[in-house]
Each structure stands twice: as C-alpha cells, then as structure tokens.
C-alpha cells in the first residue's frame, strides 16, 4: 500500500529526512516514533503529497506521488498535526465540502458523510459550528475528514495530542476500530505519536526515526519477545552518542 524508497528532504543545508525507506502492506497499523524534530511530520507530508521530496520515490496504493499526484492523493486520508477545520462551518457542511473535494461520487456523498459522523461519534453534534466544539470533538471531526472517502491508506499525525485521558481512549478505540479487519476492508494506518503506550496498545509494527534517519523497523512482538520494553528501545535509539549511560 505504501512503498517509500530513499525519501530525502533537504531544507538548504539542513537534512530533515535522510533516505527513509519502508513498505507497508494492507491491514498493517504502524506506529511512527521519534523525538520532536526527527522528521516525522515532514515524512508524512511527503507521503500525502503536501511537500515534494528532494530525492527518492514513493508510491501510495500503486500510484507514484510525483507522477500521478491526484490518484495518489485520492488514496490517502490525512489528519495533520492540527486538524484542518473551518471554525465557521458546521460539522455536516464541512464534511460535505470535504466529500466534494475528495472526489466522493455525488450519489454516495450523503451516505459517506453519515457513516463518518456515525463512526467518529459525531452524530449528536453534526449541526454544531466547528468553532464551538471541544478539542476532543474537533479531533474527531479531523479523523472523520480523513476517513470520509474511505481511503486505503490513513496517515494520522499525532491523533491524540492535547486530549484528556478519556478522549485519548476514545480516539484509540476509533483507530483500532478502523484497523479491525472484521469491520472494514484492509487498511494501512500510519500514526505518529510520542506516547509509547499508544503504540503498544494499537500498533503491530513500529518505525523509529531519529535525526531524519530510520533507526528501527520492527514488529512490536519481536521487540518484546527479546525482553526489552519499547521505552528502552526508544531511549537507546534516540540518545546521542556520549549521552548514553
């Protein structure tokens, strides 16, 4: 579903992402870890077609993101770090707009909006103006926007940041639900986070990026089978040389 080959992003002299490669198949839920400024958001922005890579190639659902950008973007649902919402619109109006620009066929728009409202627990607030919603609800509208066109690939940038523990549990439940092969077609989900417990709770595989480089690509099961906690691995991978005790 996602094939990234040597993705590199350079801002002047600064190397934000350095030859990141990975493959993700259908049905995989991948946790994308790394300290702040490691290049997580930049990598995600490249995969979603928001930013071009300086070098390297990537394909989403078989479509090259540089050569067939529109087809590749149609296959991705993306929740940026700040949910991309228009505060003056109501929830339904906003989702209807997103359905139009994401090429949901006219006949299916209504049902797409209704099912997204349903899945994200927004049915009770669907007529509310987005600006008046709580942070947790806004995050859900952000997720509803990402899943609206039923894309095979979901990219979520810190979907639980800034939420309270109950909201976090709800969003996690929603993500687990989206990944559940019994409920939907196999989807590929990549989510970035700082919360290691979150990765352990919902992901089966973890990618770790540090200073733009991929430092770990492993199944969670393998790591824990070796008797190390995710926290130990994270600390070891991301500490600079000399800092390690």
């Amino acid at each position, binding site marked *: 579903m996602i094939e990234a080959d040597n993705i590199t992003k350079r801002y002047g002299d600064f190397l934000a992402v350095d030859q990141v490669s990975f493959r993700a198949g259908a049905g995989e839920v991948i946790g994308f870890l790394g300290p702040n400024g490691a290049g997580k958001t930049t990598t995600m*922005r490249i995969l*979603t*077609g*928001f*930013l*071009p890579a300086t070098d390297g190639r990537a394909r989403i659902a078989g479509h090259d993101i540089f050569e067939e950008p*529109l*087809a590749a*973007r*149609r296959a*991705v649902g*993306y929740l*940026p*770090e*700040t*949910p*991309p*919402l*228009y*505060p*003056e*619109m109501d929830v339904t*109006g906003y989702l209807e*707009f*997103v359905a*139009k*620009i*994401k*090429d949901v066929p006219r006949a299916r728009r209504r049902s797409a909006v209704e099912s997204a409202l349903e899945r994200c627990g927004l049915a009770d607030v669907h007529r509310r103006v987005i600006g008046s919603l709580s942070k947790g609800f806004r995050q859900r509208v952000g997720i509803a*926007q990402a899943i609206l066109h039923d894309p095979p690939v979901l990219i979520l940038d810190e979907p639980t940041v800034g939420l309270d523990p109950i909201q976090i549990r709800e969003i996690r439940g929603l993500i687990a639900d989206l990944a559940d092969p019994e409920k939907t077609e196999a989807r590929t989900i990549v989510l970035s986070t700082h919360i290691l417990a979150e990765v352990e709770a919902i992901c089966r595989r973890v990618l770790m990026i540090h200073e733009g480089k991929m430092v770990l690509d492993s199944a969670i099961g393998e790591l824990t089978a070796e008797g190390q906690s995710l926290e130990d691995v994270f600390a070891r991978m991301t500490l600079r040389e000399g800092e390690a005790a």
Partner: protein
Amino acid sequence: MKHLGAIAGRELRSLFVSPVAYAVLTLFAVLAGFFFLLSVQGFRETMAYYQQIGQFDVLRQLNLNNQVIGPFIQVMWIVFLFLIPGITMGLFANEKTNGTQELLMTSPLTMWELVLGKFLAAAAFVTILIAMMALFPALLFLDAGTPVLGLIFSGFDLADPNPEGLQMWAGLLGLWLLGLTYAAVGTFSSSLTRNQLVAFFLALALLLILWLLSVVADLGVAEGAAGTASRLSGVLTWLSTSDHFDKLARGLVDTRDLAYFVFMIGTFLVLTKTSVESVRWR
C-alpha cells in the same frame, strides 16, 4: 475544473456567515448612496450656475449621463480600493492560519481549481456590489415626473432630461472589470502571507501603485523628456488602471481597454498560482 464550484461555494458561504461580508455590504450601501447624492447635488449646482450667468445653451446640453452617472461611477473606484482588499484578504491567509491549506493541498485538486475557485468567490461578491450600486443610477431611468427626477430638475429646463442606458452600462462594465482586477490583486496578496491585515495593506499598496502609475507617467512627460522617456511613460500609462477605467466610466467602450483588464486579471491569477504552489518547493 469540477471542484471549482465546491471551492467557490465554500468560500462564499464562509464569507456570509462571518460579519465581514455584512459589514462590507452595509458600508458599501452607505458610501454608494452618499456619493450618488453628492453627484446629484453637484449636478444641481452646475445647472444653477449656468442658469444664473444666463448660459442657457450650455445648460441645455447638460445631461444626467455626464453630470451624474459618470462622476458617480468614477468616484466609486475609491470605495472599491478599500473594500475589495477587505473581501479578499482572508482567501488564502485564512487557509494558512486554519491549517486547512494541508487539507486542500493533499486533496485531489489542481492548483488552478483552487486559485480560480477562490477568485470566483471574490468575483461573485464584486458582482453583488455592482448590482447594489446600480440601483442608484437606475432610479434616474424612472419616467420623468417621478419624485426623483422631479426633485433633481425642479426649477430647471433641459432639452433632454432622460439619461441614456448604454452609456451607463458601459460605465458599470468598467467598474465591474476594475473590481475583478482588484479581486485578482487581492487574491494574490492573500496568497503571500498568513496574516489577513498584511494581505489587506499589501493589496491596498499594490492597487494604489497601479492607479498612480499614470500620474508618474504624466510627470515624466511634463518635464519635456523625449525618446525613451516618453516611450516609458507610454508603458506606465498603459499599465495603470486609471486611464482604462476613466474611458469606460465615461461610456467609451474600447476593446483595448477591455483587453487590458483581462490581461491584468490573468497576470495576477498566474502570480497567485505560482505563490500558492511555492509552499511545495520552498
């Protein structure tokens, strides 16, 4: 271009749920009414002057088109100069502050759909403004003997007090094209910044420069410059919006002036597209 309607429609709806659109419409109605009354008042004073000095042949040649409608349309550019940047300032700047730029740029939209959709929304608003202000000169087309015309002409004797429709339409066409050009410049300004206020003042500055180019050109000619200098002043005059607009406002429709506005709108939309795209390669 199938997403054009979705982008423009969303923009217009957001404009009309915010107070900005209503503030602009109210202000516009008040200013248009004020300037219209001023034009009418000026007309009555001119008539009174010629009557007083006994120039009845001049008095007879005065007409509503040249003395009221023309000056009214000509003065409205100042209102457009301040109001249209207020309408366009949020077009792209808001997308950046909302973070919705990331939604738009990761959706299967083309850059032109995005830019033209935004411009179309602003153009629709300009059209509403033109329709509103056209109501004032439209009053003059009511049959003679109605209170409005009666008030204007009471005490004066003109050969033909009735205005001519085509001349007014030409003037409104000129103002509409000017408004669309201002909308294109405003759209471009909004694409350069994430701050609405910056977008507003940038558009104002660009529009003033465009207007004043012809004044600068006139200064050059006045100093008696020849050759390249006069050619340069010719270019500046052509680039300036003022002469093209003045001709249309007076009712002179020339395809060269129409082409000028089409050229300016196209240029600023291409610039906008380049600027919006630049987040990708910056």
